[in-house]
């Protein structure tokens, strides 16, 4: 087995004296989309924030072969990560162009790609981002992540949350296009989108990894996906569902 691009082992996060993550394991392989799934409150966003060092964390996060758990957020991101946060993280008082310019790290940013995927951003370049619709703000957020050709991983946290169906399609197309060049770790509630995009999936429950495997297998198994993703009745996660990757020694 080749070593993953991103390997998380036993990630733990304590915020304000409360344990949010008790030990998350996940791998993102060097191609395609890996979906991070789980019920509300399972710890998906905290996992992402822990990987990026936005919350104090312990455990091991190896990116591209290097341990990053002792690094600060900007050091981790500079190693080539594009991040699309849950609330979009768009700077409302800045213009669209300024939001994008702030994200520039490469000498030759991929404005061509961004404007091809989201032509609206070019038209609205001088508009304050705070006056954009939710969908347009999401385009800015994704655009910032796609701008740097040096990015070797994109982490997108619920990029379609709260968007109109037409915009969901637009975002999906953009992610699909991006995934051809860069692997993506995608937090997503929209299972149709997961089915369309994801190759692998990791499921969290109560701050732990509860399942890992091919995305298609999980979604094909109605009983299993109901148990893990909380569609329908609530049930405890049986031990034998824990994926082969978790808890293993590497």
């Amino acid at each position: 087995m080749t070593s993953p691009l991103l390997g998380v082992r036993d990630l733990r996060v304590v915020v304000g004296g409360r344990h949010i993550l008790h030990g998350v394991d996940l791998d993102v392989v060097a191609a395609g989309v890996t979906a991070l799934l789980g019920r509300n409150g399972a710890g998906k966003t905290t996992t992402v924030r822990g990987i990026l060092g936005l919350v104090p964390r312990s455990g091991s996060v190896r990116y591209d072969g290097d341990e990053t758990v002792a690094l600060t957020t900007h050091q981790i991101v500079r190693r080539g990560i594009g991040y699309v946060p849950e609330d979009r993280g768009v700077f409302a008082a800045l213009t669209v162009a300024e939001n994008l310019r702030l994200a520039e790290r490469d000498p030759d940013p991929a404005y061509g790609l961004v404007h091809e995927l989201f032509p609206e951003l070019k038209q609205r370049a001088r508009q304050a981002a705070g006056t954009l619709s939710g969908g347009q703000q999401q385009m800015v957020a994704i655009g910032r992540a796609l701008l740097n050709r040096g990015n070797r991983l994109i982490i997108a946290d619920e990029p379609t949350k709260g968007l109109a169906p037409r915009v969901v399609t637009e975002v999906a197309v953009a992610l699909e296009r991006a995934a051809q060049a860069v692997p993506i770790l995608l937090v997503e509630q929209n299972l149709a989108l997961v089915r369309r995009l994801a190759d692998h999936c990791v499921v969290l429950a109560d701050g732990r990894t509860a399942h890992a495997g091919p995305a298609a297998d999980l979604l094909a198994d109605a009983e299993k996906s109901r148990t893990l993703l909380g569609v329908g009745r609530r049930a405890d996660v049986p031990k034998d569902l824990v994926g082969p990757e978790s808890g293993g020694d590497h």
Partner: protein
Amino acid sequence: MSTVVLLGVTGLGLGALYFLVASGLSLIFGLMDVLNFAHGALLSVGAYATWWAASHSFGFPLALLFGTAVGTLAAVALELGLIRPLYRRPREQVLATVGVGLAVPALLSAIWGADARTFPVPAALAGTFTLLGASVPVNRLVLIGAALVVLLALRLFLGRTRHGLVVRAGVEDRAMVTALGIDVRRAFTLVFAIGGAAAALAGGLAGLYFGSVDPTQGSALLIFGFVVVVMGGLGSVGGAAVACVVVGLVQQFANYYSTAGLGDLSVVVMLAVLLLVRPSGLTGRLA
């Protein structure tokens, strides 16, 4: 009429001092959540450095430059030495600035005495000029001019440079700036340097305006700096510019047309009322 003109120009001159104090305070608070109680100390450092240089026949412009440089260095030292190690502990950061705010004026009065020292005002700035029938001291114009230059420079810096972009974005969401791969701590040092420079410049100009320097000037001006910052909306330089004009004018006119002291009083009462009616300040932004 001539009284109104004189009061107006004096109010604007005072407002200019408040702006120089408040612009840095506002940026520091907006970006770092640190209410810098040492800002008055930085002003005093600038005032004494300018006074020292001016008394040693530097010439006023050079003395002002020297004072501003010393204040900038002091601010950078404060940020790197005391504020940065307490990163992620905002309450302790504020407490550390309180300690510095107490210690520095005490040190200044230990070295140069607690009494006011006469500021050597250059002859060219000591006179008055006639404006609409009023005889207005020239130094008011120097103050207003300096504040306008600083306002313009800050706007250019914030609007046209990458560092300025980082500061504006950081005022909105510091964590997201780091998540774009930017080391926001460098912006911290930068805003402290800018704030220290503006405060030290205010110190030197306060020496010109009051004709003397004393160790408590900084903390007295700091209070009104806070008033301006809060009124203008924390983190907003434009808001601070509007608020300082309002505060300076209200203070001057109320002090003249009612009993002395009522102007100062009306300013703080105005702040309290404004905060209760519009908690986010004049510009509607609360960082």
